[in-house]
């Protein structure tokens, strides 16, 4: 079992074949995005004379530059708010055992159960009445509230395993509660903060329906909305569309490959709670 025998080799071959099947659409994607639209050869054959024309055209037509900036702004702001308010909320929920605290915890956890579709329409109307439709603020507000339950859940679970000695010592030394939290407790939460950041950043970055609703009719777009409009506009020009898809995919894939260890650990570990 511990040696690299023929069975291990067989397993290796099967797994590489499976990975090739999984990666096949991505090969087609890149292959066609590099191909001149008039090139009629089989989609499977590697492109003989690759061109970056499609990329230049897609970049011009899809409005991806603005969309990428918007996606970054929305993701960074939302994740920052989620981390700050959820970490703060988790602290009393984890440390105080009075009855109100337990009830507050249950109330927040209720949010894990409610699908956002239920709140979607009434919230849409409230956002409209506040005049926030078409602004990035509406998205930041939405994600910040929507993700409080899950982030708080992760923070509370982690905090319960953190010993209180550091906080006690800091309090005895005369530090104020706010200082104790930000200087002593919050740094101790770093591992779980990493998980919260990763899971929420990917969720916010990839979300389509929310910006599709809240930004529709305005000139603001995030990447998924821009891509959705782009593929609708150039339905059958697949070489162009594919170049757009590659550009849209690039930021998250680069981020993923740079931090794959942390990201995979975040997805696997954050959900253990």
């Amino acid at each position, binding site marked *: 079992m511990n040696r690299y025998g023929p069975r291990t080799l067989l397993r290796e071959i099967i797994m590489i074949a499976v990975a090739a099947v999984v990666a096949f659409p991505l090969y087609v994607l890149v292959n066609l995005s590099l191909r001149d639209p008039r090139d009629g050869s089989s*989609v499977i054959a590697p492109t003989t004379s690759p061109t970056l024309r499609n990329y230049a055209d897609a970049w011009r037509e899809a409005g991806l530059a603005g969309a990428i900036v918007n996606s970054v702004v929305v993701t960074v702001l939302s994740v920052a708010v989620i981390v700050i308010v959820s970490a703060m909320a988790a602290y009393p929920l984890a440390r105080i055992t009075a009855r109100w605290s337990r009830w507050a915890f249950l109330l927040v956890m209720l949010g894990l159960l409610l*699908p956002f*579709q239920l709140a979607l329409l009434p919230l849409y109307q409230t956002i409209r009445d506040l005049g926030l439709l078409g602004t990035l603020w509406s998205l930041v507000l939405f994600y910040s509230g929507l993700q409080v339950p899950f982030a708080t859940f992760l923070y509370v679970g982690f905090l319960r395993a953190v010993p209180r000695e550091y906080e006690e010592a800091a309090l005895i030394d005369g530090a104020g509660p706010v200082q104790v939290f930000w200087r002593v407790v919050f740094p101790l939460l770093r591992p779980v903060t990493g998980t919260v950041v990763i899971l929420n950043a990917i969720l916010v970055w*990839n979300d389509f329906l929310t910006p599709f609703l809240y930004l529709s009719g305005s000139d603001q777009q995030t990447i998924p909305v821009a891509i959705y409009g782009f593929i609708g506009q150039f339905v059958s020009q*697949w070489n162009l569309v594919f170049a757009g898809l590659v550009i849209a995919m690039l930021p998250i894939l680069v981020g993923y490959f740079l931090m794959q260890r942390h990201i995979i650990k975040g*997805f696997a570990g954050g959900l253990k709670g």
Partner: protein
Amino acid sequence: MVRGPVGEVTRPTGPGRLGAEADAAGPAVAASGRRRRVRRAYAWFLVPALALYSFVVLLPSVQGATFAFTDWDGLNPTRHFIGLANFRQMLEDPAARGALRQTLVIAAAVTVVQNAVGLLLALGVHSRIKSRNVLRVLLFAPAVMTPVVTAALWKYMLAPEGALNGLIAAVGPDSWQQNWLGDPTLALCSVAGVVVWQFAGYSMVIFLAGLQGIPQEVYEAAAVDGASGWQRFRHVVLPLLAPATTINLMLSVIGGLKLFDQVWVMTQGGPGTATETLSTLIYKNAFQLDEYAYSVALAIVLTVFVAVISGGQYRLLHRGGEAAR
């Protein structure tokens, strides 16, 4: 000495309590007062989160629940209470019944296939193979991609003149070529297949974390006892994977029930209503048909299904996991 609520002082080892040692330190009445002030200060820490959460989730959910019992179209200033009429309409509405059926089918198919594939992949990369680290990163990659982007890619892959039929033309008989998304009997399977393609790696990663948590000695003990490979898997590995299985099944059921992006990009619920799900129907009723109240009623049905199925699943698996131990 002033004491807190009874439950608070009599439990000596509750998980982290502020003010616990106010009792231990007899003369520290002043310290106890300070502790209460500290505790009150920390109560304020809840306010921003609760405010955001109430504004975005709680209040609109309650509002949504009440709109479902009215005839509001979302535009008209007046609305009337009409009781359960929206829900009764749903029972007779073929679109709603079809959407419910398709939602359940797709959630069930995705849950079963995605986790079976995910488990096999996890077993595959949890071994001595040399490519395991590369494969892990590669197989998980689709899970971080934007569903709108992957769905657009697959819309082409599955088109009549697309790459899948091109591949079939190159290796197999022409009769295997299909109109994957245009054929009403195939479209739902195709959509489910795309979801599995994207998220099987996600299940794999969670199963893998479970597998890595099983100590090597457990395998060895089972091997010494003469258990075959299958027996080891069935009676040792699978029970110990129960927590990972629970999480995976919950995630894929909830994801499957709420599925929207992939359907919207690839088929918009079509051909006909073959791939209509509750989520696409909710969207259409609210934003295209101005059937606002009806749409909220559909959302309530979705909520109930998500809560009942995932809750029931959790209890069932939890009990199963406990029994296995």
